[in-house]
């Protein structure tokens, strides 16, 4: 099919964002506390 690559781009981007944003917020919180 070849379409699977589009699915994986979406899943990887979304999960990478969620994990990255969580870590960023925790880092900012740690710095501000």
């Amino acid at each position: 099919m070849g379409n699977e690559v589009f699915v994986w781009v979406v899943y990887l981007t979304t999960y990478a964002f969620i994990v990255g944003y969580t870590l960023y917020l925790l880092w900012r919180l740690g710095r501000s506390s």
Partner: protein
Amino acid sequence: MRSHRAGLDPLSKGLLALGYLLLLIGFYYAMKAPPDVQQGYLVRILYLHVAAAWTGYLAFIVAGVYALLYLIRQNPAYDRLSAASAEIGLWLSLLMVIGGMMWARPTWGVYWVWEPRLTSVAVMIAIYVGYFLIRQAIEDPEMRAKAAAAVAILGVVNIPITYMSVYWWRSIHQTATIDVVNRRLHMPPEMLYPLLINLLAFSVLYLAFLRIKGRIAALEAEREALDG
């Protein structure tokens, strides 16, 4: 003195843990769901694309409600929460656009087309980019909060237009899968559950992010006030 505010509060911790757990369950069911008759496994994009879109709308509506509360009560905490929610909403909208583009390329043949839904989404994103430019540009905290609140409320007005665009101007983008306008479901239960679980996961994570971002903003404002 500092210990009570250091680190994550228990509710935010719980929301984060629950959000990640739901995300894992959502992934499992998304991968287990049957392929679409026409699109095959490409339909898996829907489970994240729609979840990001809905939670993005929710974040912008919450930003608008806090903006209105700020204008009524003049409490800076509402302004901070409004900005926090708008920022998360903007990120979710960008994720939704990435998901949409990756879905559009194999189905429509292009990543982007200026049809009504995509155009109204572009307007929505432009409004919230403008929101943050205004926040950067105005130094006086009270003026900044008032101007930002006006944009946040304007942004909420645009959301029904974005949502309804697929009904008002029929074009290439499909109408809603969970059709709240005509009260119809356009998918079988084995595809609906992964969508609902992902929607719940995104909503819980949104709440966790909002709490943490609101807290960071409050701590920073406190520090700024102390530094004078």
